[in-house]
């Protein structure tokens, strides 16, 4: 008989031990991820962030939160590719975050999930990029604060272009030709992301169309877009495109490791690419599609929102005002110390020395000259419907017109739900 079985346990002991364990568990649960070394005061707030790929970002967000003295701010740093699912599911529960980052989406406003932040932004409204204000405004009210603008464009290896005697392409036809010339035994000409959805909006803009128009009607279904889809199918099947790369477009590895000569990516990757490739790096916008098209850059980014159904709406608003309006040094740090992003505040963008020269300055110029911002009414459901157009007509050789017709049906259902 083992020594363990010799102990004199009775039901009362068991009950006491269970209660002790429960109490210990409760105390352990109190140890939230506040980012503080000890204690705190005031309200307890929770914020959700998706996991950024750049080193140091998680620590930075927690550092900012720890510096806020009026509330205990804990950070939920959500890894993996299901940030929006985790966020949306959490928003329905009592443990919903008070503050969260996301993109401006009309359905969040219509469903009352995000708080009106107009009173916070109004005093500094003129210091924000007007397009960022516009993309967060519904019926004159502003529902989010832009934290960073993320232009997306092509990166390319200058040395490979010189060796293959290729000029920077300005049309989709030229891009297809360039990809063919740049493809060698070990290097593919171009990487557009593993499923091509990274470029789905710029296809529309580069073909001279838009996602939805000012009257909230479908504007993407044009001959130019259909023609662009056919050309992309030609590129996809050419054998000159990098497919099934270990990481997607948001990661600089494909270009850095020499798997491709051109890669679609975001400005956040620029520091890592410069570190790996030095001066052997250039950028250019998505080429124009057809004669009516024009070059384009997608200005993605992230915004901060306050959960309107949260328990601490006022405290949360105070916190986001403190961090994303008052603390300019943190905003600049967030935009330029890890990956490169463009600060939405004009005063910060103008003073950000890292963005003033060289390739970063070129990125800012592309952002200014060719940039397209989010349309708050072009929501996730519509974007998913267009992603299926890419899947069907580019990757699966379906008829682009038929794919666009199918997409129209889904988008119209969504538009009807949003606007009646």
């Amino acid at each position, binding site marked *: 008989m083992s020594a363990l079985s010799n102990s004199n346990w009775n039901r009362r002991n068991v009950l006491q031990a269970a209660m002790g364990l429960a109490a210990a568990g409760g105390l352990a649960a109190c140890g939230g991820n506040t980012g503080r070394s000890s204690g705190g005061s005031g309200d307890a707030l929770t914020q959700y962030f998706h996991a950024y790929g750049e080193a140091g970002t998680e620590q930075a967000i927690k550092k900012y939160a720890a510096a806020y003295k009026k509330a205990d701010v804990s950070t939920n740093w959500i890894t993996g590719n299901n940030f929006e*699912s985790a966020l949306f599911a959490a928003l329905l529960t009592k443990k919903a975050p008070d503050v969260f980052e996301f993109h401006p989406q009309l359905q969040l406003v219509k469903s009352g*999930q995000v708080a009106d932040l107009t009173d916070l932004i109004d005093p500094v409204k003129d210091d924000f990029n007007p397009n960022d204000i516009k993309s967060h405004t519904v019926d004159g009210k502003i529902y989010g604060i832009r934290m960073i603008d993320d232009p997306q464009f092509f990166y390319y290896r200058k040395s490979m272009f010189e060796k293959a005697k290729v000029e920077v392409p300005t049309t989709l036809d030229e891009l297809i030709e360039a990809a063919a010339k740049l493809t060698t035994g070990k290097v593919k000409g171009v990487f557009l992301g593993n499923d091509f959805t990274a470029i789905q909006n710029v296809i529309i803009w580069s073909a001279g169309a838009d996602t939805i128009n000012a009257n909230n009607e479908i504007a993407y279904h044009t001959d130019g877009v259909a023609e662009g889809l056919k050309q992309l199918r030609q590129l996809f099947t050419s054998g000159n495109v990098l497919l099934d790369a*270990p990481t997607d477009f948001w990661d600089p590895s494909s270009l850095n490791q020499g798997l491709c000569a051109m890669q679609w990516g975001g400005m956040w990757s620029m520091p890592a690419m410069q570190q790996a490739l030095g001066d052997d790096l250039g950028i250019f916008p998505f080429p124009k599609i057809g004669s009516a098209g024009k070059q384009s850059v997608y200005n993605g980014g992230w915004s901060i929102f306050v959960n309107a159904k949260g328990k601490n709406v006022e405290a949360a608003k105070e916190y986001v005002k403190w961090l994303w309006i008052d603390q300019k040094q943190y905003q600049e740090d967030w935009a330029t110390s890890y990956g490169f992003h463009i600060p939405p505040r004009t005063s910060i963008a103008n003073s950000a020395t890292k963005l003033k020269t060289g390739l970063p300055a070129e990125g800012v110029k592309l952002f200014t000259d060719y940039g397209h911002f989010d349309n708050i009414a072009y929501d996730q459901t519509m974007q998913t419907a267009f992603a*299926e157009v890419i899947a069907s007509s580019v990757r699966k050789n379906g008829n682009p017109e038929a794919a666009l017709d199918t997409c129209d049906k889904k988008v119209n259902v969504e538009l009807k739900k949003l606007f009646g």
Partner: protein
Amino acid sequence: MSTTTTRGVAQPAPAKASPARPRRGLRGNPTFNFWLFTGPFLIGLVIFVFVPIGWSIWLSFFDARYTVTPSHFIGFDNYKQILTNSNFPDSLLTFSVFAAFIVPTTWALSLGLALLVHRLRFMRAFFRSVFFLPTAVSYVAAALIWKMSIFSGVRFGLMNTVLGWFGVENIAYLANPSPPWYWVVIVSLRLWIQSGFYMILFLAALQNIPGELYEAAAIDGAKPGWQTFRYITLPQLRATSTAVILLLLIAAYQAFDEFFNIIGQNATWAQTPLMELYKTALGTSQDYGAGSAGAVILSLLICLVTLIQGKFMGFGRGEEAK
């Protein structure tokens, strides 16, 4: 068996019945004990299974976008939407075809493995462990290994490296649906991860077949090998086979993890019914009404397929068949 009497020997007086007294606690009250041990599980079952099922059915009749406590009753509109203006019906069709392939394949492979390790004379435990261990690997981890390491489309992916030795160009297994190499990735993963578990079920069933049956068959002139397998082993495994096929069918329709991580949500092919419901309810649309309607349809379909399968294979009649 004889009985003996002990005449002349004083029998011990019957023990005096002790006065009945109420007995408390674990040993005294069977009803109390029953609820003590099953109650927590029953409560969990009600809270985490029956309430969500009921709630889901209720949600399916409401406009439940961005909320799980809706108030606008819309009848069968969600059912109409999910069946006519979504990819859900396509996914059901795709996965009926998938089930038709993967169920018999996994059944045959796991039975084959069980027969193999059952007859091993040496290193039996080692081989059983080798085949069973993949069961312990999570679908997510395995999917990432398959996608990023073995079937990566770049030149240093394992499969492409091997093919490169024979002069075959790199293959994009997942991004390009034509030809549908993605099924090789999915099916090989599923077979690797599932077969060990079902092998164990078959192994247990094989060990329960009485040796006398084989001896009697040998005396009657049955040849060992296919004849014995066809007329003794296989019929004896009928109950287990039925259960295995049932579990495989349900698993096929409930496929999610590996498809989600390997194919992703931006394809129009190999989207499982659960992925479509996930996208509808939790992903981009947050339409809990339409998602719930799809979940109800899927549940009914699984029940229907199970009943049909039970009808044909006689689920629960295994003992009678012996």
